[in-house]
């Protein structure tokens, strides 16, 4: 049976930065047949890379492009935004949009390093939480 995995934005960040959890993230990703990333995560990750490059002088966008070239990038829509509003817990609307996007696109699972997302939305979709360290 094919399995699809939705990557939260922080997964991209942790891999590009080679954070201590990158190895575990890689191990989980390798188990899935299809990999999805929302267009919002793509935007945030580029924002992050450009900002970090300006501040550190290190190049990150090339690595991000390589990662994204392998993933399916999925769009959000006004329907997804409405769904996000209806499932919103706490105050992080972006988390709700990510979860609503994954559900709308019938992803089997979300991979994140955000404990709040894991705690708030695990009742709606399977969420694998890989702590930052």
């Amino acid at each position, binding site marked *: 049976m094919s399995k699809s*995995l939705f990557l939260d*934005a*922080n997964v991209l*960040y942790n*891999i*590009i*930065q*080679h*954070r*201590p959890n*990158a190895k575990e*993230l*890689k*191990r989980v*990703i*390798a*188990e*899935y*047949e*299809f*990999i999805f990333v929302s267009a919002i995560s793509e935007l*945030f*990750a580029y*924002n*992050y890379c450009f*900002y*970090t490059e300006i501040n550190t002088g290190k190049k990150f966008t090339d*690595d991000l492009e*390589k*990662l994204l070239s*392998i*993933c*399916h990038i999925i769009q959000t829509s006004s329907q997804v935004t409405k769904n996000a509003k209806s499932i919103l817990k706490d105050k*992080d609307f*972006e988390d709700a949009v990510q979860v609503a996007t994954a559900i709308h696109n019938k992803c089997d699972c979300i991979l994140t*390093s*955000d*404990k*709040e997302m894991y705690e708030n939305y695990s009742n709606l979709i399977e969420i694998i939480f890989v702590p*930052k*360290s």
Partner: protein
Amino acid sequence: MSVIEISSHNLLRSFKQFMTTVIEGGLVRFTYKGKTFKIVEEKPMTQGQKLAQMIEEITKDKPVNDEVMEEEDIKKLMKSYRYE
């Protein structure tokens, strides 16, 4: 798992038999000039496996970055700095 040992002498005669073994998930060992080769079916990589391979490639020369950073700070970096 079925295992077949073949050599250059019986390669053609046993071709159908060893291909059937490979297709059924068995193991075929081919010996030639004292070296042994394993013949297995090449399966296409999944998107996850390709991405894992890419992650390995882009992280292999980078030191692990264990600088402590709170989730809030990361989120600010990723989305809010433009509006501050």
